[in-house]
């Protein structure tokens, strides 16, 4: 008998809990008017970055395509000349396509890139209605030109942009 009373009391406590939860403010986020902020290292859409002077960072080495576990990236390199320079160094990516039907947003391409050209940003609103629209070409992926830079292709003086990676400060002497 006391067990029955205890059970009824338990039901009553449950009902009280749900009633009290009615008085809490709801946690709904009214998307798309309000959006939840993303975390700092969120892996969204890719962007091909540029240097401050406007040259593209991507040198067409296709390390990102090699690293991609889903085989979503297609890179075709071409040769840079000083009259028509897209990136420092000898090569640039003439064709650069990411297939968002294959991409799993793992970020391995970002880790593999030697010039920090391909990065994943916080854009997650990527819906498309046609499968062809899922293949993002270089134009769609490239970052806009920064304020103090010039658009590519640029005409550059010879001998300045020879190395594909910019000058890095020396590492401090490693001491055992």
């Amino acid at each position, binding site marked *: 008998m006391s067990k029955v009373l205890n059970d009824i009391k338990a*039901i009553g406590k*449950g*009902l009280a*809990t*749900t*009633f009290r*939860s*009615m008085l*809490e*403010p*709801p*946690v*709904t986020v009214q998307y798309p008017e309000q959006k939840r902020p993303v975390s700092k290292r969120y892996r969204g859409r890719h962007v091909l970055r540029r240097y401050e002077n406007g040259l593209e960072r991507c040198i067409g080495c296709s390390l990102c395509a090699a690293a991609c576990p889903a085989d979503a990236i297609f890179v075709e390199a071409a040769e840079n000349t000083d009259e028509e320079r897209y990136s420092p160094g000898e090569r640039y990516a003439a064709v650069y396509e990411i297939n968002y039907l294959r991409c799993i947003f793992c970020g391995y391409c970002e880790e593999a890139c030697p010039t920090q050209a391909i990065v994943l940003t916080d854009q997650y609103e990527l819906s498309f209605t046609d499968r062809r629209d899922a293949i993002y070409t270089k134009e769609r992926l490239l970052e806009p030109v920064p304020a103090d830079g010039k658009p590519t292709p640029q005409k550059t003086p010879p001998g300045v942009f020879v190395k594909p990676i910019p000058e890095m400060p020396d590492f401090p002497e490693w001491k055992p």
Partner: protein
Amino acid sequence: MDTALLLEWTIKALLLIVILLTGFAYLTLMERKVLARIQVRIGPNRAGPYGLLQPVADGIKLLFKESIIPAKADKVIFVLAPLITVIPALAINAVLPWGRTVTVFGREVSLYVADINVALLYVMAIASIAVYGVTLAGWSSNNKYALLGGLRAAAQMISYELALGLSLLGPVLLAGSLSLVDIVESQRRMWYIVYQPLAAIIFFITSVAELNRAPFDLPEAEQELTAGYHTEYSGMKFALFYMAEYVKMITVSALFAVLFLGGYLGPFESQYPWLGPIYLLIKILVGLYVLIWLRATLPRFRYDQLMRLGWKVLFPLALFNVVVTAVFVVLLG
């Protein structure tokens, strides 16, 4: 026949059907909103302001859905089964008293469709027909899960109908009549929930089981028996099953209010009879809220626990209540 009387009945019946169907539509919205609030979220609020056009959107969606009848299903019974479930749900409401008489266009109109002197017997009889609809739906679907779900639902409904009928006898003994209008009128001094708390609780619990609602919703749970007896139903036929359940929710709340909470009685009701329906509406809303609250809180009963509760606990308690009430009525006259 007196044409004015015939017209009065027709208008009242049509008005009742319209009110019930609109009430059913907005009950679905109320349930979703209240469930959402209990779960610390907002319910539908995109279709119309505060989601008020959501039932319209749902109705249009269900109307446009393809009507699928399984290949080897018994077509006639498959189509009839939802009707057999829905029509009793609507028919029970004919005897509910919404108020006493009001004067409309110089004519005394009573605020109920019919006042038969065996109203409660009519209610029980019609409610039992709905069991046929459920069983036939399960059987005609040609699907073993639907069949089992239908049988389980039918067994559950008839087991709890016993205790339901017995719990109804409490107010009947106190009022001395089966007519719902008489029962309401005899609660003028004191509502019956004060004299019959046990019967009220048993009535509420058994009617939740009759409705196949949580926590007694095993026959129609999605996780068990792949949605039970309405597995194979789509579109408008499914909407009819849904309608039957929600209209019965309104009916059951109304019956609880009429039998135990004084129906349309309330302060100043005798001077202004129009207040009667408003009081009844408030009581029905309270009953509906409790039904939704129960659904949000309690986990589902296992089938054997459900049967055990119905036969071994509620039925003896209801019998005990009838005996004690009868003794008191005889002793106190």
